[in-house]
C-alpha cells in the first residue's frame, strides 16, 4: 500500500488519481491525491457511492481552512512519517488563534476526520482553560439563559473553583 504510488510511476506512469476540492466560500480549488482526500470519511463516502464529480464542492469551509485540512491529510497519508514528526506537524497546524481553531474544528467535523477533530478540540481546550467563563461565552457566541440570581446560585455551589478568576 505504502509503495504502490511509487511503483505505478516507475512502471507505465499512469497519472495518479487526484480529486479537486473547491471551497464554496471563496471558490478556491485544491488538487489533491485521492488517497490523501480519502482520509475524510465524508469524501470517502461520496467517492464510494459515485457521488463525486471531477470537482468536489465543499460548502461553508474557506480556502484558508481547507488548506490546513489538506496539509493535515497529506502529513497523515505519508507512511514514512514517524509518530514524533506527525505530532510536531499537528502542533504546527493548530498553532492558530481561537477563531481559526473554531473554523477548523467545524471543518474537521463536517469532513469527518477524526484525528484532526481530536487535535483541534484539544487545542481549543488548551486555549480557553485560562479564560474567564464570560470571555468563553462571548467567543463562542453562547447566549446566557440564566437570570443573574440563577447564575450566582450555580457559582456559589463551587465558588472555590473561581479562585483567581473574575
Amino acid at each position: 500500500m505504502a509503495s504502490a504510488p511509487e511503483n505505478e510511476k516507475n512502471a507505465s506512469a499512469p497519472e495518479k488519481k487526484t480529486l479537486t476540492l473547491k471551497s464554496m466560500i471563496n471558490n478556491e480549488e485544491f488538487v489533491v491525491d485521492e488517497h490523501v482526500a480519502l482520509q475524510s470519511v465524508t469524501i470517502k463516502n461520496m467517492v464510494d457511492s459515485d457521488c463525486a464529480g471531477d470537482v468536489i464542492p465543499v460548502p461553508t469551509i474557506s480556502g484558508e481552512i481547507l488548506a490546513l485540512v489538506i496539509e493535515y491529510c497529506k502529513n497523515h497519508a505519508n507512511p514514512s512519517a514517524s509518530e514524533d514528526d506527525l505530532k510536531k506537524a499537528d502542533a504546527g497546524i493548530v498553532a492558530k488563534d481561537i477563531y481559526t481553531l473554531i473554523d477548523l474544528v467545524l471543518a474537521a467535523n463536517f469532513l469527518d476526520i477524526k484525528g484532526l477533530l481530536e487535535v483541534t478540540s484539544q487545542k481549543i481546550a488548551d486555549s480557553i482553560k485560562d479564560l474567564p467563563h464570560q470571555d468563553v461565552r462571548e467567543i463562542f457566541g453562547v447566549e446566557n439563559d440564566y437570570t443573574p440570581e440563577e447564575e450566582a446560585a450555580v457559582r456559589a455551589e463551587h465558588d472555590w473553583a473561581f479562585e483567581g478568576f473574575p
Partner: protein
Amino acid sequence: MSWLPELWFDVFTRLPPKYLLQLRCVCKTWNSIIKSPTFIRAQLNQSIANKNNNGTLFLRHCDEDKKQHFTIHKKNESFGEDYAEIGFPFRGTKRKFNFIGFCGWPVHSLEHVHRKFISIPKPHHIGIAHFMGFGVDSKNGDSKVVRVVCPARSNPQSPPKAEVYSLSLRLWRYISGDVIDSFRISLWNRLAFVNGVLHWIALSISENMDEKAILILSYRIADDRFQKMPLPQSSLIENREPIDSFKLSIGEYQGLLAIFQNEKLSWTNLGSCRIWMMEKYGVEEPWTNLFKIDPPGGIGVVIGFRKNGEGILEMGNEDTLVDAARRRQMATYDIQTHQVRGFEIRGCFNLFYVDNNYVESLLLLEGDLYMEYDGNRGNIGIAGNANFAQI
C-alpha cells in the same frame, strides 16, 4: 459556519475539572452537559488517556503530627518544591489508613467549605484496614468503594477480607474465594496499583497450613477478582538463601509491575535496592534486573519512581535519633548519576505513597463520601481512590 453544540462534549472532556465547574455558569445547556454522568465518565476516560503526557505525580504522606496530606507534583525542574495540596474526598475516618492506589480523584476544595456528603453505611469487616479505594467501573458505569481489610492484631493468622460498596445499589458485598482465603497480608506491606490491578507481596498458605510460599496477590478492580501471580523465584534467590518476604516490596516502574529487592540493614535503612521489572504481565520469568540503587550510607526506603525514571526515596535523618520514625525526609535519586537530592517534605516512616495514575475527575460532584465510623469496632481507614475505569 456557526458552532455546533455537539462539539462541546469533546472539547469539555479535555478541560480540567476545576475549570469545568466554572463553565457551568456559561449557560444552562453547558451546566447540564457537565453534570451528566455520561460526560463525567467520558472526561475521566479522556484524562486517563492523556495522563501519560503530563508526568504528574501524586504523593501521600503523614506529617510529624500524623496528619495526612495529599499533594500533586507537576514540574520537572522544581520537583519536590513546587506542588499543590489537594483535599481528601472522604469523611468519617479518624484513624490513619495505610496504602492507597487511585486515579480519578474527585476535584474539590481543600477546605471542604459547605460540602455535601453521600453517606455510606458501615462496612461489615472489622480489623485494621489496609486499603480502601474509590472509582468508576467503566464496564457497568457504577461507582464503587473497595475495601481490603487486614485481620485484627488478636488474630494475625486469619486471611484478609474484601468487600465492595456499590453506589448505585447502595450495598456492601463480600468478595470471597479460595484465593484470598489462602493468603496473609501484613499491614506494612506496600501495594502497587498497575493497570487497574492492585498487587501485594503476600504469603500463601496451603490448606493444612504446613506450606508457605511468597507470591503476588492481585485484585482486579473491574471484575472484583483476586488472583495469585508467581514471583521470579530463580532470579530473586541470592546465595541459595530462601527468599525473605521482608526484603521485598512491590511497585511500578514505567507503567510495569516492579519488585524492589532490598538488602535491609535495619527497619528504616534498607541499604541497597535491586529493581526488577515484570516484562510480560502475569508470566513468572523472565523478570528484568534493571539496576541497583546503592548510594553511600544506604537508601532508607524506595517508595517508587517518577515517569521520567527518577527514583523516589524516603530517607532517615541521622541527626535526630530521637523519634526517628516520625522524621523521615523525601528525596529523589538519579539513576544515571546516583545523586540523591532531598526535598522539604517530611513525615512518618513507611507512610509515604506515590502514584503516577493521578487524574482529576468530576466524580462525587454532589458531595463527598461519608462513612459511618464506630471507634469501638476497630480502625476503619480510608485510602484513596482507585481507578476502575482504566481497564
